[in-house]
């Protein structure tokens, strides 16, 4: 129990470190020196020292609710609760982010929210199906039950689901080729366009919870061997940066094709294998 609480508390710190590594490694890949590792922290301090300004109160309410559900997702995850509930809080969190974008009348924010909705459509289906395969393989959706007394990693029974989860995370990282909702040169900052100062920082903070959460799911797949899981998670993170720095943006159709054409068959084959064997 104490371990779970410690994990919850260090998650944002790990998130901050990952964001710093993200910028540093990306810079090195582009043959630049890059900002210091603590740059995301400096960004946060700067954002909080700016004068407060917002468009209307509902955007702020939605932003705060977004953060609240993101934190709830991480808390439920590390308290080893039901995977379906975790999935729902995660979706709700993105949903409030979209509502926040829609609640201003800025065209960029509007377009960005539409694209975010498309991204939700592209990955949430796949993510839910992955969770269903875990449920079918283990006979329960409770993470506590899944992780109790494991002798072999989940990866052995769900290799294709694991591959599909990789697709989900590649899209979810918000990097090229799937940086569609917040495409800098097309829709400015997408759904975040109308936020400034500390209200923009809210989204940075929610990213600090989101990125470690998605990487932690990879660890679950290797669970009795924690070290292997952590190495795989680090590798996935690095690979997402590599993909991000070597590709260019697709359209939302490309994103839908990517997850639906490759992801869903992978999961279905895995599911069929589980049921038949």
């Amino acid at each position, binding site marked *: 129990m104490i371990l779970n609480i410690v994990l919850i508390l260090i998650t944002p710190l790990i998130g901050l470190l990952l964001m710093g590594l993200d910028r540093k490694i990306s810079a090195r890949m582009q043959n*630049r*020196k890059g900002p210091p590792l603590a*740059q995301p922290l*400096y960004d946060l*301090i*700067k954002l909080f020292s*700016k004068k407060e300004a917002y468009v209307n109160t509902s955007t702020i309410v939605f932003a705060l609710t977004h953060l609240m559900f993101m934190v709830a997702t991480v808390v439920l995850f590390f308290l080893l609760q039901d995977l379906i509930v975790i999935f729902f809080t995660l979706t709700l969190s993105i949903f409030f982010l979209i509502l926040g974008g829609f609640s201003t009348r800025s065209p960029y924010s509007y377009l960005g929210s539409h694209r975010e909705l498309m991204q939700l459509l592209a990955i949430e289906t796949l993510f839910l199906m992955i969770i269903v395969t875990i449920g079918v393989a283990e006979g329960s959706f409770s993470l506590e039950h899944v992780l109790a007394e494991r002798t072999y990693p989940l990866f052995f029974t769900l290799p294709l689901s694991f591959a599909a989860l990789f697709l989900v995370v590649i899209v979810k990282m918000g990097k090229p080729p799937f940086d569609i909702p917040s495409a800098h040169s097309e829709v400015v900052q997408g759904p975040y366009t109308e936020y*400034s100062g500390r209200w923009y920082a809210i989204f940075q903070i929610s990213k600090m919870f989101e990125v470690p959460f998605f990487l932690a799911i990879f660890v679950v797949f290797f669970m009795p061997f924690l070290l292997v899981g952590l190495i795989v998670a680090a590798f996935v993170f690095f690979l997402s940066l590599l993909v991000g720095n070597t590709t260019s943006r697709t359209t939302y159709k490309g994103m839908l094709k990517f997850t639906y054409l490759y992801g869903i068959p992978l999961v279905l084959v895995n599911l069929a294998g589980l049921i038949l064997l």
Partner: protein
Amino acid sequence: MSKALARSPWFLHYDAGGCNGCDIELLACLTPRYDIERFGIVNKGNPKLADILLVVGPITRKSKPVIENLYGQMPEPKVVVAVGSCCVERGIFDGCYGVDCLLDEIIPVDVYIPGCAARPGTIIEGIKKAIDLWRTRIEGH
């Protein structure tokens, strides 16, 4: 704490009507050779998140209301930098029919970067001056 304060300047770059020469030099500062991101400087392209407004070119009749709008949308504390001779004192565009006024006649300008085109080294020095000014403004805020 005060060391960590002004280490994340995000800038907004607006071309008010120059020849694009300074734009190219400005963006060259972001490339691997000069890499101003090592100081945490990022081109955000969004006035609501920007701390430094970099204006290039003379203020034409069409761009005057845009500049006022962008400046108004940037939350305090903020600094304005005029990049290139034609932004500082009209330069080669002096007397052109479309040129309306100088930048400092419509918004307060803090740093002037000369040169036609301003060289990346000069631009980085100017941005550094702007950051120092910005730091004192954050502390006073």
